């Protein structure tokens, strides 16, 4: 089972939302990391055959997904970034509706819907209208609909955005439990989400993958570029302007800064081992500041 992406490009006028991407995805969880506007959602829509590429192909087990059509969509599960529900649907009716348009038989749909509602912890509220649900419950229902057809390719676009930490942990665990024997692509700009569950990380910037590999391998690329130093509180504003600062922690009259910089920023700075958040800041902070 593989998803082969070759020279995938999506162009709007002179702007490249996705720019000549080549990658082969096999079983496992892939975390797609990138700032807002990096092209994550466009890539996901292209993978789900919702948008047409300007050029390039996506092949599922050797078949072009554009021509494979409903055969591909039969093995696809998708949770979009911004999605809504028909407000008067109950959780169960919503899953039955999604089952119907996924082409599942009625008997199977009912059994599968109840199973999934139990797995996502919504069985007790299956007859309640979705409009009464909290954000976390809606997201859990969202992943349940994506899992209805037991997909081989699961695409989740920013599934944890807007959730509180407890719900995020719960959601991450759900994704982990659903990810067996599947190609799971999870896009996010929340670093900790992919840190825990993704086997491979794809870092996307301006429509291109600038890094791909296991989290520890990727993090190694910024070895020796993360520093920690203690500075007087009064110096913090000027240092913030000059350096890419990660975390800062006040300790009395001084502040401990985590600086991401090619060179040692000051005499008392000590090199520390980087983490994924540092990597994110290293690649995307400049872009965010420009915005």
């Amino acid at each position, binding site marked *: 089972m593989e998803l082969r992406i070759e020279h995938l490009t999506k162009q709007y006028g002179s702007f490249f939302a996705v720019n000549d991407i080549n990658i082969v995805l096999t079983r496992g969880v892939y975390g797609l990391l990138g700032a807002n506007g990096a092209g994550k959602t466009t890539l996901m829509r292209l993978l789900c055959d919702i948008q047409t590429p300007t050029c390039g192909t996506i092949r599922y087990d050797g078949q072009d997904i554009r021509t494979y059509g409903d055969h591909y969509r039969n093995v696809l599960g998708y949770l979009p970034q911004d999605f809504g529900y028909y407000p008067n649907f109950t959780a169960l009716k919503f899953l039955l*509706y999604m089952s119907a348009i996924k082409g599942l038989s009625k008997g*199977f749909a009912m059994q599968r819907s109840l199973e999934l509602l139990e797995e996502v912890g919504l069985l007790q509220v299956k007859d309640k209208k979705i409009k009464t649900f909290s954000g976390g419950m809606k997201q859990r229902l969202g992943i349940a609909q994506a899992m209805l057809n037991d997909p081989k390719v699961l695409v989740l676009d920013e599934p944890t955005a807007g959730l509180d930490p407890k719900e995020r942990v719960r959601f991450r665990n759900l994704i982990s439990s659903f990810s067996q024997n599947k190609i799971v692509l999870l896009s996010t700009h929340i670093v900790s989400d992919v840190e825990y569950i993704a086997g491979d990380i794809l870092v996307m910037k301006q429509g291109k993958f600038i890094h791909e590999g296991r989290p520890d391998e990727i993090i190694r690329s910024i070895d020796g570029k993360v520093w920690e130093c203690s500075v007087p509180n009064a110096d913090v504003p000027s240092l913030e302007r000059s350096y890419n600062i990660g975390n800062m922690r006040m300790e009395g009259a001084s502040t401990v800064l985590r600086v991401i910089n090619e060179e040692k920023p000051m005499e008392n700075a000590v090199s520390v081992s980087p983490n994924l958040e540092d990597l994110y800041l290293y690649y995307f902070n400049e872009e965010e500041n420009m915005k």
Partner: protein
Amino acid sequence: MKKDPALEALFQQNIAPDINPKVRDEQIRKLSHEVRNMEYLPRQSFAEQILTQMSFISGWVWLAQACFLLFMFAVSQNQRWFPTYGQIALFCLTPALSLILTCEMSKSFSVDMWEMEAACRYNLAQILFLRLCILCGCDLFLLTGALMAYRSTGGALWQFCLYALLPFFLTAALSLYLLRRMGNRCSFMTMAAISLTVGIFLPLFLQCVPYVYRIPSHRFCSIIFTATFLALLLFFYNALRLCAQQSYVYDNRKDQNAWNLE
């Protein structure tokens, strides 16, 4: 193998009865149904798809359509009322009937379900087409009912075209055009505004231009029939274009697909 005479005699005494063909057929039907239900991804006929999709059409659509039919029937029963009130009711209600159709067609966009639906086996284009078939079928039934009620009071066909069909198709065509061009940015309010505009301004326009009635009747009728036919074509053109769209992603940035030769 040696025959056991005792066993053979026992079999002779207990011969299985002939199978009743009716019972057999019924059993086969039941088992086929069972197998089909157990099948994970069965092939569905178009009629089955329509029936499935019908069960998810909003309840208020059926209710509003039933009210329209009942109202037309009630008004047509009163011969004194019908010429004036019936025509006004038709003028006002048919754009509303059309609004029901376009609202139901656009509900995937208005509640942001379209992206999830587009990634399913029966994708958004197919879902929209199924909805179009269901709603057009119902509206055809309703308009036929309204036409019969209208004709029973002595109204002419050209009048029905002018008061009912033209506003209906015009409203639907304009709303679907906007939906096709704007997707989820085409809100209920926009479609309601179109419906109101057609429902109010078309009769006002006809009232303000009384000389149109002085045109020799056969010519005026031809104009009305042609306008209705054009509105019908426009409606089907927009509806089918909406159902045949390659992508429903509405982005302000200009899409470029010109050189995808893969």
